């Protein structure tokens, strides 16, 4: 497989109402990288993520995942390779029990029942949700739902983990727990988030989107130290880089 695991070239997307959501977006992500895609509301982050899994069709430009260009023919393989975790876990969990939900993907891959059961056990163990196996998803807390949503994707053994706002709506403890979990994954990781402190901790590289274009692509700390760039893109420094709000020390 190519060492460029995600390659986006001159991607453009225009919605039916004429809104240009993405314009000439290009970047390359390598194996094992952990990359954050940040930007203000409406910058095009979610549209970009939907392209990585082939939900949206580009008006122009090209996307390659591993060795495959994203086409209708390669879509099944690409959807196995790119595991997508949605922002709202309730959209992701639709089966009667956690077990059924986690088994949904492996079954669609055509795996035998015993192998599916083993995978479900393993990934639920991995995300610390083994005890929730027979629970209905709507009885879980926000943090539990998020971990189960990740398990539903991990059970398909994806090479790339794409997550839309992974920490949104979580309490501080659940957020910390989830970040610990994500840090341990060896996958190539792509996150979109407004939780910039999480970005600092988990992603050495950041891509900044602004009005559908890539405004910056580089080391996370460098980007967060560029005050002019942040202001232009309607962003702020992460709280952990802002110093004490009471005495002003540590700036």
């Amino acid at each position: 497989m190519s060492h460029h695991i995600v390659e986006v070239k001159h991607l453009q997307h225009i919605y039916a109402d004429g809104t240009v959501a993405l314009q000439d977006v290009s970047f390359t992500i390598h194996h094992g990288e952990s990359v954050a895609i940040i930007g203000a509301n409406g910058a095009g982050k979610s549209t970009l993520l939907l392209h990585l899994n082939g939900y949206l069709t580009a008006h122009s430009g090209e996307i390659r995942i591993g060795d495959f260009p994203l086409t209708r023919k390669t879509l099944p393989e690409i959807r196995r390779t790119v595991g997508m975790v949605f922002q709202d876990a309730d959209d992701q969990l639709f089966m009667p029990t956690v077990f059924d939900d986690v088994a949904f993907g492996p079954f669609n891959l055509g795996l035998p029942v015993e192998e599916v059961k083993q995978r479900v056990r393993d990934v639920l163990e991995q995300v610390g949700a083994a005890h929730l196996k027979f629970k209905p998803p709507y009885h879980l807390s926000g943090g539990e739902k998020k971990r189960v949503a990740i398990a539903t994707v991990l059970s398909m053994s994806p090479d790339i983990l794409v997550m839309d706002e992974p920490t949104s709506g979580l309490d501080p403890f659940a957020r910390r727990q989830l970040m610990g979990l994500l840090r341990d994954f060896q996958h190539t990781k792509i996150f979109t988030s407004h939780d910039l402190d999480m970005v600092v901790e988990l992603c050495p590289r950041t891509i900044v989107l602004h009005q559908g274009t890539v405004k910056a692509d580089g080391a996370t700390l460098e980007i967060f130290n560029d005050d002019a760039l942040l202001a232009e893109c309607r962003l702020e420094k992460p709280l952990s880089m802002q110093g004490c709000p009471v005495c002003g020390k540590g700036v």
Partner: protein
Amino acid sequence: MRSIDGAVLDLKRLDLLATGDSVIHRLDARAKVLTTLVFIVTVVSFNRYEFTALFPFFIYPVVTASLGNLPGGYIVRKIIMVIPFAFVVGMLNPIFDRELFVRIGPLAITGGWISCASIILRTVLTVGAAFIMVGVTGFLSVCQALERLGTPRTFTVQLLFLYRYIFVLTEEGARASRARELRSCGRKGLGLASFGPLIGHLLIRTWLRAERIHMAMLARGFIGEFHSHQVSGFGWRELFYVAGWSAVFVVLRMENGAQWMGRLVTGVLS
């Protein structure tokens, strides 16, 4: 809007009951679907004035529900909910069909009342049996069974999506209704006028949400086929189950079981 939320959770409970483990749960879904089908056809095949002969048919839902460990109160509550619909279907019968059918002392019962009661009883029996079948099988397995019995896949997948959409629609409906209620300050809000846009929004929201769920399904390799981890085959056990119950239904169809029981009891007493 606790009522809408509650109703959804109550319906979801049916899916959870289906994950249980009992003699009935372990049977191949096809056996349960076929038996229920025979049951429904038999019950529906009686003439419209038949009433007493239908009572012995309660044996099937009662035995299935108890062997499947389904909570009786829950099932009865669900069945009671459909009675008003059945009554609406049969409520004109007593008006149009005034022919005297039976006289009990001074009380004259017309054919219309008998046929109306028969409709309600048949509804209770058939809806109850179908409901219990889903409770011991699961909607997913019922659809898979239908497919394995020859129903076109397009139809079964549509059925599954329709079932799934009920939850999406009611969940979104509960949210919208809650938001409206909280801002109406205990009054009627804008009355009926506010319901037009509310329903419009509801449709768009449920459509968008259904699309997101569909995306999540596609992301996990969904190609129009649902799978189940319960592996079962149609063996001797299933064959006996279908044949045994079918025989009982045929006998009860030919013989009025209630009258037979009545004769037996009066014979013993005299």
